[in-house]
């Protein structure tokens, strides 16, 4: 039962500004993901909630309590570290029970809660083992169990899945989501993996260089990116960003011309098209926006990724799995009218753009 609020929080390491004038409210029971490339300040932001870093200025609240000067032990948050940070000299049982031991929970309750949590993460047969005798996935579960053994006000998770192999990661992702749904505890989750962010979050805060680029539901972030950074960061394969210029409302680039930006002129503009928002058609299709030679064809199973040579860069599109085009053959591209994004390359902001059909 807790909300977390940042008010104008700045964190500096010497001269380096890690987090800049940061405002964010994480609602009660919300699963909020801080997403961004490494060095964007997301982990620092989380560590300030845990009390492992002090904010240089600004206020951090959990519910109505300002926690800037509260010792970590009184903040009542639990954290899962990227490295798991299991105590190597303690058994699984003692690792999980550590937060209870510190709080001097009576022995019967200690036993009951540890075994209950261990059962929940399927570690009940390994309580006597040491961390070094566990696999990566099991260690991850111990770290998780240690966090949920008491019911904290806030969960903090710092890239908890990044050390797992791909298959295990998908499985743990689902378990995490289910667990958070069951426990109903406010969660702040840090990751640089946009798939994790999209699948887990109620809301995503995309961070870059210490500021939030965009805050919204995964759907909003994906369908309505506000900045060039968000557009390029979210999506896999990432959005095609075609540089060009806008003259009198018409975007122009090598072999591509689309009108619809009112009457504005932008000397350096970028047109964004998601791989799945354009159709690869025949080169002689009269409705094609552009024609370009095929650079590569990659079958992923569910569909085919087709890269076209467009000027000096590649444009990647998602085509049907039965796509039959050959490398070096020309192909036409038909971009969905309402799925084009226009950005000003200088401000990196989105520009209002309604392509004329």
């Amino acid at each position: 039962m807790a909300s977390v609020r940042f008010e104008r929080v700045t964190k500096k390491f010497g001269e380096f500004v890690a987090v800049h004038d940061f405002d964010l409210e994480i609602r009660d029971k919300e699963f909020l993901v801080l997403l961004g490339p490494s060095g964007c300040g997301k982990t620092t932001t989380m560590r300030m909630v845990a009390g492992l870093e002090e904010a240089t200025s600004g206020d951090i609240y959990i519910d109505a309590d300002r926690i800037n000067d509260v010792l970590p032990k009184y903040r009542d948050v639990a954290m899962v570290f990227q490295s798991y940070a299991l105590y190597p000299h303690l058994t699984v049982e003692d690792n999980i029970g550590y937060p209870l031991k510190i709080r001097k929970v009576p022995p019967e309750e200690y036993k009951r809660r540890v075994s209950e949590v261990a059962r929940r993460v399927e570690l009940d047969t390994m309580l006597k083992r040491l961390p070094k005798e566990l696999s990566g996935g099991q260690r991850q579960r111990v770290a998780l169990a240690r966090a949920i053994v008491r019911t904290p006000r806030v969960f903090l998770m710092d890239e908890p899945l990044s050390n797992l192999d791909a298959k295990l990661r998908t499985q743990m992702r689902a378990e995490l989501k289910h667990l958070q749904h069951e426990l109903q505890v406010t969660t702040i989750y840090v990751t640089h993996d946009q798939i994790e962010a999209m699948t887990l979050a109620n809301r995503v805060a995309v961070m870059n260089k210490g500021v939030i680029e965009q805050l919204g539901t995964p759907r909003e972030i994906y369908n309505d990116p506000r900045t060039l950074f968000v557009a390029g960061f979210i999506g896999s394969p990432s959005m095609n960003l075609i540089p060009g210029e806008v003259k009198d409302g018409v975007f122009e680039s090598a072999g591509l011309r689309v009108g619809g930006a009112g009457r504005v002129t932008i000397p350096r503009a970028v047109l964004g098209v998601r791989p799945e928002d354009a159709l690869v058609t025949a080169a002689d299709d009269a409705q094609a926006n552009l024609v370009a030679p095929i650079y590569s064809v990659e079958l992923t199973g569910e569909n085919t990724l087709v890269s076209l040579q467009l000027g000096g860069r590649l444009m990647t599109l998602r085509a049907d799995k039965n796509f039959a085009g050959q490398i070096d053959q020309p192909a036409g591209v038909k971009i969905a009218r309402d799925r084009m994004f226009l950005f000003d390359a200088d401000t990196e902001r989105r520009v209002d753009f309604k392509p004329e059909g």
Partner: protein
Amino acid sequence: MATAIRTRSRAWERALRIAAYLTILVALVLTLFPVYWIAANSFKFDIDIFAVPPEWVPRNPTLKHYDEAFIERPFLRYALNSFLVAVGTTVVSVTFGTMAGYALARFSYPWQWRRQISFWILSTRMMPPIVSIIPLYLFFNYFDMLNTKSALIIAYTAFNLPFATWMMKSYFQDLPIELEEAAIVDGDTRWGAFLHVALPLARPGLAATAIFSLIISWNEFLLSLVITLTEQSQTLPIGIAGRVTQYNTYWGEISAAGFMACVPIVIFAFIVQKHLVRGLSLGAVKG
């Protein structure tokens, strides 16, 4: 062709291994023979100690010198003094060295203070101990502490502490800091994280530091020679050296006492040996 190469490399490997064992053997003989020679001499009559050709194994073993050293002369007393001083020094140096090392490894300091303080601590080891003997003598004299074991403990600690601090500092720096952070977020205090997490993991470092400190203070000669004169305060090395007199050198007694002086250190080294093995933190992080 391929077989020839393989045979040759196998022969080569074997030759290397034999060379390695031979080197180890030479090193062992060089280090262990003096110990053996002391032990052998301690069981010989005086006349056999000087026999030519040397008597490699005592032909008429005797405990006479042990009786002289430990019953007739106060070597038991010296041994007890040595023990108290060495253990006292070790406890004090390791305790404070550990806390100072932790502070230097973990806390943040403005500007370059971490380096400055560390260097300053180490710099006290840069001068040879003999330089400080007269000041130390005057100091202990002023406080009326000459001929006391506490004076020895204080003096030895002064020389051991920098080493203990540096050793523990580098040990703590090698421990992943997230473990203590995890403990702090789990509800522990900084002190609790140090006590429950960092310290147990630093056991190999503690053992190594303790052995070092113990051996140094057990063997120390110069300071003890200057600071102590009485039977109640003198340590084994001084007692043993005292058997080299103006008229005679009592090799038998020296051997008996010297051999017995080795025993506690060897036993202690055996006890803590397993803690010396690193790798306790294995599996803590990732893996």
